[in-house]
């Protein structure tokens, strides 16, 4: 089929039919809309957080009637001749600022004691699109921490209800025991009757969680993420293939996560055995440094060079200057 032409912020690109505005913007590669709930590897995600709203000023060449309308770019398919405003539209930026404010009014902002800090999508989003102060003075929503097994901690207070962990459990694991309970601002991720989430791939919910609501119990409070160095690594694993990222400090593997692309999306999900049970350097073949090139606190000019590690002899370079 013919390619479709779309113009986003005055830059034009041709994309195959079926591409969404967000994907097209990512193909352009600069100033693409943020996404807190949409997740390419998981089907049916998107449309919920509303931070990816963009303004469609013309829907197609065949129907050039201007339709200035905010749409969720993660779900809206490109039409030929579509014209979209993202960061060039003040309306979009205002709307995005509003959504960030909404996401933060009930967020505890406990970044100083949150494991996700430094690699938190919400943190990055609010640095880029949020306001400095809040206008919210009412009480914040709070939940008790829920125990969902040996490996994962659920702290609902931080959750932004992106539903990613629900889709992960549906699509990656063989059974889902958690879901969204209740409604409105009382909605919560939960297992209804206290149930442990325990199957071979359950740990992936930690990786897909954009905030610190689902954290790794075996890593929790042991280290700030920016004090450890990530390396690509692999091991022989017949469950998941064993392609992962190991986070090393002082020659010890302190954490294992799955590999993510520049949009912060998991490339290949890993099994719980790789994630939680293999923390020995001998278990892994370490490859090169895992480059973080998305906007993130971890790589915000924090690391210009890496201290030499005797165990891994690689040309480590975190941020290209």
């Amino acid at each position, binding site marked *: 089929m013919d390619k479709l032409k779309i113009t986003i912020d005055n830059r034009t690109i041709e994309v195959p039919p079926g591409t969404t505005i967000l994907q097209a913007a990512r193909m352009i590669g600069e100033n693409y809309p943020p996404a807190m709930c949409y997740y390419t590897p998981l089907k049916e995600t998107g*449309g919920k957080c*509303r931070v990816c*709203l963009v303004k469609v000023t013309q829907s197609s060449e065949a129907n050039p009637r201007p339709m200035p309308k905010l749409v969720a770019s993660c779900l809206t398919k490109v039409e030929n001749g579509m014209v979209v405003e993202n960061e060039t539209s003040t309306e979009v930026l205002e709307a995005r600022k509003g*959504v960030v404010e909404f996401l933060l009014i009930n967020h505890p902002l406990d970044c100083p004691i949150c494991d996700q800090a430094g690699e938190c999508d919400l943190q990055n989003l609010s640095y880029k699109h949020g306001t400095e102060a809040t206008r919210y003075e009412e009480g914040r929503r709070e939940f008790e921490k829920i125990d969902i097994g040996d490996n994962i901690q659920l702290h609902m207070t931080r959750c932004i*209800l992106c539903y990613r962990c629900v889709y992960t459990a549906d699509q990656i694991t063989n059974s889902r025991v958690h879901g969204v309970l209740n409604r409105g*601002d*009382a*909605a919560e991720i939960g297992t209804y009757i206290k149930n442990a989430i325990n199957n071979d791939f359950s740990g992936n919910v930690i990786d897909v969680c954009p905030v610190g609501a689902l954290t790794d119990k075996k890593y929790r409070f042991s280290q700030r993420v920016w004090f450890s160095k990530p390396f690509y690594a692999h091991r022989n694993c017949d469950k998941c293939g064993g392609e992962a990222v190991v986070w090393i400090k002082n020659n010890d593997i302190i954490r294992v996560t799955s590999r993510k692309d520049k949009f912060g999306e998991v490339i290949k999900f890993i099994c719980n055995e790789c994630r939680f049970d293999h923390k020995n350097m001998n278990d892994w073949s370490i490859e090169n440094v895992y480059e973080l090139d998305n906007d993130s606190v971890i790589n915000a000019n924090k690391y210009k060079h890496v201290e030499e590690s005797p165990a891994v002899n690689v040309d480590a370079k975190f941020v290209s200057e």
Partner: protein
Amino acid sequence: MSKKILLQHINVPGINTLETYVSHGGYQSLKKAFSMTPDEVTEEVKKSGLRGRGGAGFPTGMKWSFLDKKTDKPRYLVCNADESEPGTFKDRYLMQNIPHALIEGMIVSSYALGAKTSYIYVRGEMMHVIRILEAAIKDAYRAGYLGNNILGSNYSLDLFVHPGGGAYICGEETALLESLEGNRGNPRNKPPFPAVWGLYGCPTVVNNVETISDVPWIINNGGDAYASIGIGKSTGTKLISACGNINRPGVYEIELGLSVEEFIYSDQYCGGIPNGKKLKAVVAGGSSVPILPADLILKTANGDPRLMSYESLSDGGFVSGTMLGSGGFIVYDEDQCIVRNLWNFSRFYHHESCGQCSPCREGTGWMEKVLHRIENGHGKMSDIDLLVDVAKKIEGKTICPLGEAAAWPVASAIRHFRAEFEEHIKNPDSCCKKHLHSEHALIH
């Protein structure tokens, strides 16, 4: 006496039974519809100019013609009877008193759409209505109006009543379909619209109870006859559920185009305001539509008399107009507190938000908390602009219209009654103290 279509026989004893309904011309439209092709039936509805009675006012015939008829998938008709808008109680009245009107409409409409299975999704709290409908459907099966080969026409239809789980959000058509499928009642992102991807991924039409109940009359009397009733593009009659400070609350069938003034003050309808009090404001179409002060509800900004029609009520846009909505007509006299009323509405939307998308989940709660503070004498002047801004940041940014439904009342109440909000904040004792001594204060 204006034209009655739906409530023509409402006072006939036993009209809720099949026998009486049939003896008063019930189920006549079936024979006529089956003698026409489904497309001809749709064409007749198009000609009638009938518009969706659930609130949006979208032309019904056009909605039907969008139905994807090219696929091999089954098609469905779903009746939205999840009536839960504060102030609206017309569908319940119709279903519990003349259940066969809806069933007859469902059969004719399903035939027009080629649906072999249809559903009536009834609000879960209305259990008594569900029982009435189920009994009526049983009677209709027995009489051969439902089931296989209806009246020897080769057309077969199964009709099911489905109780909702008690959520306002399931009145949104895609949330309703999710709920009907057995899922959590979260609205879907659109497009695709239900006409292409509806129930179980099949083409589906979702219509309001009143809309579907209008169809038999249109088939019996012709689309042109229906179009001759009413005014302009607002054809036919509309059920209005009137409540609040009026002498005669209840459900009235009006011909569209009746003046609002006549509706409020005529003894045939609301019968005026009790105790000789003055009219203060009206919410004309259920809690979601903008509230209008007395001068703007009786006359448009241009000075023309305001009529009960889609066009006249929305005259002036959101600056000086409102919407016909679902027909929930709430009247306030001079003693009513707009701030308190708005807080009550906001509390409802906060409670009913599904929590799927961020602006509505967080914004509805925020607005309610600020309004609660103002109402209880802890407001600040900056809160008024904050409310306006929060409402603006919800409107148009959400998956479904619940966000707008929550934002419009706030925006309009502040637009038209800003002084009252300021008075609440400057002088909390004057108004709020009065409430503290009233029975309503017990809610706190």
